[in-house]
């Protein structure tokens, strides 16, 4: 029989439940040699691994040794205690979304999107905003319920804010792809700071996206949501819709009627 999986002590899996199997590779700035091999073993042991196999050692150029290592870890984490803010939006189709917007909000939701700073990577933002969409999922421009302004790349943060104000935008969509030296974080922070400076911190729904942006990171920085690799336009549409409804204190039940939430107050 197999060992039962225990989510309270979650570990990597290779070929036996609980084996803690991990592959690594790295380079040490020394020539390959038995001593270098031993050093690699010691390095990996230092990290707390056991059963360390130096599967490969070879020279890179001069004075560098490349290692491929397999090892096991003893440490585990309690998966039942892992908490991430989940972007649990309902999965409505684009037709449903359009209908709810038409019936409940009664005007298109206005969006302004941009890649700020020196980021010239627009493919991700375009995938969300442009007609064509992404992965068979149509882009927000194609929804009747959204009015989209896509400012493209290399937009200074202040220009983005100005434009959002000018367009009376409901939401700002920021894309950050380059992440070298955490430039994505600085640029995300830059938007939040500039909004604060201008007293606009609550004015827009703030959505960020990019390969190194997580929902958690986005929340921490003051955004309402963060989308990453594999995000689809309809995910974003659903999120913005819910956020709008919440802001307007409406529910999303597609009952054809406005149903104001009971006012939050002392009971």
């Amino acid at each position: 029989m197999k060992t039962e999986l225990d989510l309270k002590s979650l570990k990597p899996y290779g070929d036996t439940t609980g084996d803690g199997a991990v592959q690594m590779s790295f380079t040490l700035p020394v020539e390959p040699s038995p001593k270098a091999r031993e050093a690699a073993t010691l390095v990996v042991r230092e990290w707390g691994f056991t059963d360390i196999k130096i599967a490969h050692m070879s020279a890179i150029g001069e004075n560098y040794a490349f290692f491929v290592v397999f090892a096991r870890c003893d440490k585990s984490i309690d998966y039942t205690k892992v908490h991430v803010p989940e972007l649990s939006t309902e999965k409505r189709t684009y037709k449903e979304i359009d209908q709810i917007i038409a019936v409940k909000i009664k005007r298109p939701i206005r969006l302004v999107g941009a890649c700020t700073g020196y980021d010239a990577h627009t493919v991700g933002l375009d995938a969300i905003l442009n007609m064509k969409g992404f992965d068979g999922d149509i882009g927000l421009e194609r929804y009747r319920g959204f009015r989209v302004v896509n400012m493209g790349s290399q937009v200074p943060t202040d220009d983005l804010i100005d434009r959002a104000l000018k367009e009376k935008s409901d939401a700002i969509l920021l894309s950050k792809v380059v992440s070298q030296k955490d430039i994505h974080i600085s640029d995300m922070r830059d938007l939040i700071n500039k909004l604060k400076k201008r007293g606009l911190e609550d004015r827009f729904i703030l959505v960020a996206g990019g390969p190194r942006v997580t929902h958690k990171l986005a929340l921490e920085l003051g955004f309402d949501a963060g989308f990453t690799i594999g995000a689809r336009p309809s995910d974003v549409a659903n999120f913005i819709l819910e956020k709008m409804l919440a802001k307007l204190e409406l529910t999303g039940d597609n009952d054809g009627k406005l149903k104001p939430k009971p006012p939050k107050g002392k009971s």
Partner: protein
Amino acid sequence: MAYSATLPLNARKIARCREIASSIGDVVAELVHTNSTVGTERAVLRLLGFNDALQWEGLLFPTSNFLVDQLKAANRLNEGALYWVANALLSTGLSVGELEQRVIKEGLEIAKIEPLESAKVVKFAGNLAKDSFKRLLQYRKTRAQLRRKLKDPITEKRPLKYVIVATGNIFEDVTQARAAVRDGADAIAVIRSTAQSLLDYVPQGTTTEGFGGTYATQANFRLMRQALDEIGAEENRYIRLTNYCSGLCMSEIAALAAIEGLDFLLNDAMYGILFRDINPRRTLIDQHFSRLICGVSDIWIMTGEDNYMKTTDAKESGDQVLASQFINEVAALNAGMTHNQMSIGHAMEMDPSYEKVILYEIARAQMTRQIFPKCPLKYMCNTKYKTGDIFTSHAIDTVFNLIGSLTQQGVILLGMPTEAVHTPWLQDRSLSIRNANYIVNGSLGISEEFGYRSDGVIAKFAQKVLDDALKLLEKIDRMGLLKAIEKGYFADVRRTIEGGKGATGVFPVERKGYTNPFFDLMGSKI
């Protein structure tokens, strides 16, 4: 420059190779005709239904072994085990199942039961065999129906993607196999525990401990078969199950595989001889019976020439590989098998650092494709020149998959990035399958897009291999196969006729006095 869809290989030379191979095969046929083995006899019992086991020195010891050992001790093997079982059943009036339980629980000794009238026994034996034979046909039919009902990937005109599982624990194997199927595998091979081929019995029951593989047992076969049928149904894709059928239990494994509905068997006496040091006579005889079973059960055999390339320089040893393939083809034909059941084995095992190595590999693969046009070739990935550099290993496998697709191999045995490190982890196999998915899907139809230059490096290399193989076959024919093995003609390994494991399990028979109706039922040409 002239190009053509095929390499310019001389058809007369190919035909001549076949003629010579056939003559070489006659020697083996003679051997099979005049001998049987304890393994073959046990396989007969297994076909009849003797598949339980008894406690013996703390282990589960198969009834088939127990019975054959008893008969051997009593000097009653020369009539064939079936004869004495028939005798026992006639005498006692028991069914096979009842008899087996009496053996297990009450120590009934069939070797001591009085012989009845020979003609009656032979006739009864014939009927017993016929019943078993019909059951085999029924198993075959069930499989064929399921292949039709689910989508059979064979119809997609691309190589089948074959991966191994080898955790040692059949339950963990099932987990890994399920994942592999989800990822896109078409065939699952459960690798056997190290040295199971040296065991002179098949272990019993499900097993959870093995070295570098999982024991091949009937219960393990069944468990995996069930899992694959289940997930195959979910995915609407028929998934093939594979195991190893070499070693001392070659023919018994074939029997169990037939009963449990396996689709492929790695089956090659030469593998046992060269790499497991099994007695040549023993395993060649067992091989014949195992192939009879495979043919009737429509189990593809996969031959083991790929292994020769691991102990030789694969660029140089194309001739031995091809010669051996011709010899294997004859042996399969002699067992009544059809070409579409012969998954002739070869591999991409040349040193990747050779200049033009990709051209030579294409040459070998395409040449083999053309010489065995109706055989679903089994094409093995590079293994020997892999190192712990799993990235480079993955690059080599990419080339392998592409050559497999270009040259229309029947089954590609996918390489694992960690080949030089350990038996595959879940993620290794997943990467391997996704690599093959990309290549096979991305190059669909590529074999029809290109013509080979008739005087190119590829063409010339292939022609040379064929020429050399012809010469080698002539030499082997002159000295006899067993002598050639003795001289290290295959895989650069030398083995003697008397040497090796399991030699004592061979015994001479006179076909007249020996009862094994399966030979005729299954269409043996020997």
